[in-house]
């Protein structure tokens, strides 16, 4: 079967160029950059084959209903329609899932959220397919949805939480069981120290975080091509080819060798592509019709087609001495997981284990719950269970500082975790943890110029060119926040990646090829793969092989893990290849040379004055190594106490936000964001700063504008008209300072970068708005009505 092209006359689906050179630590240029600026990079929605059909999905309009009957006859009869499929047409397992297989490929008897896929259509034009889908008659028996996580678990009042609660109370028995085991996905307890602590000063707060969306720009898209062996080739924008393959095989009832995946160009991910979307659907339609089938969601469908960030309700109680030493933290955290589990168990793991922030606290009592409801399913999003709790614990630190009459940064520094500190889960931090230093460096940065009420540029005022203020009623505020985040997968997960590295002479030059299945979603992993190979093999030319399932799993492009884990795999494979090269060179030389190494396309020994061109050592031979690489193991945590070595590495970041608030209209202008972050080792400094800037923007977005609004289980704003993400007018200048305290356990000393800045930026903005207004502000996103009391 031929490979799809992006256009009738276009280039292969997924090319990576050679890039601009540069090893580890250099601002290497991304190899796909030129293709992207030329408009030639083939994203999932750009794929094309001459005889392809278009697939569309019919989705449930109801959050909770029984399906009495489905009539597809009118849709199937529409000219141009090739197939109409329902759950009866799923040949293998009817349900799938990342951690728990609980989500139907197509609804079976019951729909549990608005937008749940019910039926599929393939037709010769996307509009034909959409018109056909509208002709499918589904007879629903509509039920009352369960829309609140605490109610779903039978804990509607906070008082019940700190009783050592039986998981199923009278209330939860009355609440509908959305799944056979009940509505609890996971309850994580963390217990350290004295269970009945007392303190001189106590602050209590209840906080709420709305449902944020990844809002990646490239819609869910892919092209499924039936193969002659009865299998299927899927070209798809995803974060983890092999976990997709596993779930697709299960649904199709096919073995892995018959389900081959290749990565299509990915237009952003941020966690939203870790779950399946159109993958199985396109494959089902392709296998049924015998023709290639392309599916590409429009923006509204994208909002229904992927999981979101868990909304959270949280109650925190902080106890401290009068001089600002934290004595205890008690927290109850509820994550609304929506209709299906997705990665809720792991999100609960993060929310619970890191839920009090990067502070040393002797007595901790945390309960973290994930619940099923009839809201949209929630799963992975950048910051993964830590974004929500950071809003709560950082708000609490500010509230405590105010209660103590202490500077908020001073309070944080006084309690900051450092290398050698123990986390509440009993894990000793065995690498640098410069929490206080990050805050102190932020404090030392220059402040932006004060708002000049005499001669203002309206574009810099809250409300901007809307001309709503010339500075009257505008108050400036400054806020700080610090956060930490685990890197890579935790709690004993076998977290590994596979890399194949080949070294050969091509066109008279030694050239390395790196082949991994690690998804490049925009973050720059392809550049990092090249940089590592250049550094380890001393060559300039490095080709990154297209990402597919013909090499072993690289794990997910999530959890800030790919540079660490796949980078580690590439480094290790390069070292193996290098060992072969050096052995050959020693054979050429005829003896052992102790300081032999690769540099500049040569095998060199400065001490012995040896410089043999790599091309002479390689000749016509191809040296290749494939290996799996693992970071040091983590362990499962004790279900009753939360104790254990759960996380392999932590990333640390801090933000200072400066805001101007129009207190009369409730409008916020973020004037500046400053960020300090420890990245261990900046493999590509330009890309590191790009991650920090982008993560900061998403945190700012959640603080002041981003929320999927849901009423009675129904989404009210599934569009970029109504779901707002920051524009270039909303983002301020950013000051960024990157620290590089090497982690002795990680390749090159690096730390995962991508998520931490997403966690600390939002709470800093919130703190700044509080400082400007004097309002308590316990819910994000902050809306004008919260600031004006209207």
């Amino acid at each position, binding site marked *: 079967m031929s490979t799809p092209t*992006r*256009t009738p*006359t*276009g280039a292969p689906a997924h090319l990576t160029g050679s890039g601009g050179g540069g090893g580890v630590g250099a601002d290497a*240029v*991304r190899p*796909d*950059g*030129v293709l*992207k*600026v*030329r*408009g*030639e*990079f*083939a*994203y999932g*929605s*750009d794929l*094309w084959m001459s005889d392809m059909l278009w697939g569309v999905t019919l989705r449930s309009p109801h959050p909770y209903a029984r399906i009495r009957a489905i009539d597809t006859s009118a849709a199937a009869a529409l000219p141009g329609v090739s197939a109409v499929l329902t759950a009866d047409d799923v040949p293998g397992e009817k349900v799938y899932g990342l951690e728990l297989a609980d989500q139907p490929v197509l609804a079976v008897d019951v729909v549990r959220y608005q937008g749940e896929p019910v039926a599929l259509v393939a037709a010769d*034009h996307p*509009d034909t397919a959409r018109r056909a889908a509208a002709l499918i008659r589904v007879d629903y028996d509509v039920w009352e949805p369960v829309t609140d996580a605490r109610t779903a678990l039978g804990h509607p009042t906070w008082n019940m939480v700190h009783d050592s609660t039986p998981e199923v109370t009278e209330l939860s028995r009355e609440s509908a069981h959305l799944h056979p085991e009940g509505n609890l996905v996971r309850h994580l307890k963390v217990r350290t120290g004295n269970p009945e602590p007392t303190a001189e000063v106590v602050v209590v707060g209840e906080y709420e975080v709305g449902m944020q969306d*990844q*809002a*990646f*720009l*490239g819609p869910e898209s892919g092209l499924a091509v039936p193969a002659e062996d009865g299998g299927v080739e899927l070209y798809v924008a995803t974060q983890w080819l092999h976990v997709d393959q596993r779930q697709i095989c299960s649904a199709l009832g096919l073995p892995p060798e018959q389900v081959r995946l290749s990565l299509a*160009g*990915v*237009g*952003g991910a*941020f966690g939203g592509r870790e779950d399946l979307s159109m993958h199985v659907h396109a494959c089902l339609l392709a296998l049924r019709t015998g023709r290639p089938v392309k599916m*590409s969601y429009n*923006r509204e469908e994208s909002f229904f087609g992927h999981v979101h960030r868990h909304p959270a309700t949280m109650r925190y109680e902080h106890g401290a001495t009068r001089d600002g030493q934290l004595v205890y933290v008690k927290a109850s955290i509820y994550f609304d997981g929506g209709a299906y589990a997705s990665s809720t168990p792991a999100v609960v793991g993060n929310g619970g284990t890191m839920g009090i922030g990067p502070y040393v606290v002797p007595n901790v009592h945390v309960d973290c719950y994930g619940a099923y409801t009839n809201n949209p399913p929630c799963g992975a999003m950048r910051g993964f269970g830590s974004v929500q709790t950071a809003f709560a614990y950082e708000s609490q630190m500010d509230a405590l500082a105010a209660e103590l009459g202490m500077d908020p940064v001073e309070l944080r520094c006084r309690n900051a975790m450092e290398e050698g500190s123990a986390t509440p889960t009993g894990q000793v931090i065995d690498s640098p943890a410069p929490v206080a230093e990050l805050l102190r460096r932020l404090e030392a940065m220059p402040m932006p110029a004060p708002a000049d009420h005499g001669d203002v540029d309206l*574009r*810099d005022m809250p409300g901007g*060119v809307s001309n709503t203020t010339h500075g009257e009623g505008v108050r400036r505020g400054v806020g700080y926040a610090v956060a930490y985040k685990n890197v890579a997968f935790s709690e004993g997960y076998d977290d590994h990646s596979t890399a194949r590295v080949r070294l050969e002479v091509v066109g008279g030059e030694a050239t390395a090829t790196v082949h991994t299945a690690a998804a490049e*979603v*925009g*973050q720059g992993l392809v550049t990092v793969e090249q940089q590592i190979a250049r550094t380890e093999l001393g060559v300039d030319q490095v080709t990154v092989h297209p990402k597919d399932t013909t090499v072993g799993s690289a794990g997910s492009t999530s959890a800030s893990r790919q540079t660490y884990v796949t980078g580690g795999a590439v480094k290790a494979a390069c070292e193996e290849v290098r060992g072969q090269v050096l052995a050959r060179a020693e054979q050429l030389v005829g003896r052992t040379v102790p300081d032999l190494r690769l540099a500049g396309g040569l095998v060199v020994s400065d001490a012995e004055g040896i410089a043999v061109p790599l091309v002479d050592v390689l000749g016509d031979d191809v040296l290749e190594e494939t290996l799996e690489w693992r970071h040091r193991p983590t362990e499962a945590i004790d279900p009753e106490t939360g104790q254990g070595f759960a996380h392999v590495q932590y990333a640390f970041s801090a933000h200072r936000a400066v805001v101007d608030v129009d207190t009369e209209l409730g409008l916020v202008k973020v004037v500046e964001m400053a960020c300090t972050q420890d990245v261990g080792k900046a493999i590509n400094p*330009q*890309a590191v*700063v*790009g991650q920090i*800037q*982008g*993560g*900061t*923007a*998403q945190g700012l977005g959640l603080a002041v504008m981003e929320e999927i609004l849901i009423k009675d289980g129904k989404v009210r704003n599934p*569009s*970029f*008209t109504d779901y707002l993400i*920051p*524009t*270039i*007018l909303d*983002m301020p*200048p*950013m000051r960024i300072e990157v620290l590089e305290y090497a982690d002795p356990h990680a390749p090159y000393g690096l730390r995962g970068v991508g998520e931490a800045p997403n966690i600390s930026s939002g709470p800093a903005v919130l703190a700044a708005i509080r400082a400007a207004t004097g309002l308590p502000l316990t819910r994000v996103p902050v809306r004008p009505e919260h600031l004006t009391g209207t």
Partner: protein
Amino acid sequence: MRLTCTVNGTEQQVDDVWEGESLLYVLRERMGLPGSKNACEQGECGSCTVYLDGLPVCACLVAAGQAEGREVGTVEALADADALHPVQQAFVDAGAVQCGFCTPGLLVATHDLITRHGRPSDAETREALAGNLCRCTGYEKILDAVRLAADRMAGTAAGAGTEAGGDR
């Protein structure tokens, strides 16, 4: 219906276009020019920005029939066969491209901005690009790229003795 228009300097004729199709759909699916991106398809994100008779528009909001007899310019025409346009090169050099899905639309909008303004202030740049959403970068490196491109084009133009901005 039959649509005839000039795209990137070449007259194009496309048959069997449905009345409901957008210019974006026709460019991407019928003319083999998928550089303009389909991110929201309701004029909110700017990913599909193209020139229509020399003015930047969201191609998703233009009914295909509205392009009849007119000139369309897409991101595919910014570079010549060998060299990137300075705006494109600046986006690559500044690290303003991450996932890159917003990039084609931003390039056309930036090209238009610099063509009109030469060296725009940051405030002018922010206003001009406010209709182009980017989810990856936080926009700082996009501002860097605009400054870099404007500087380079001004330098080139001064050296060549022509008006800043250059031709597309």
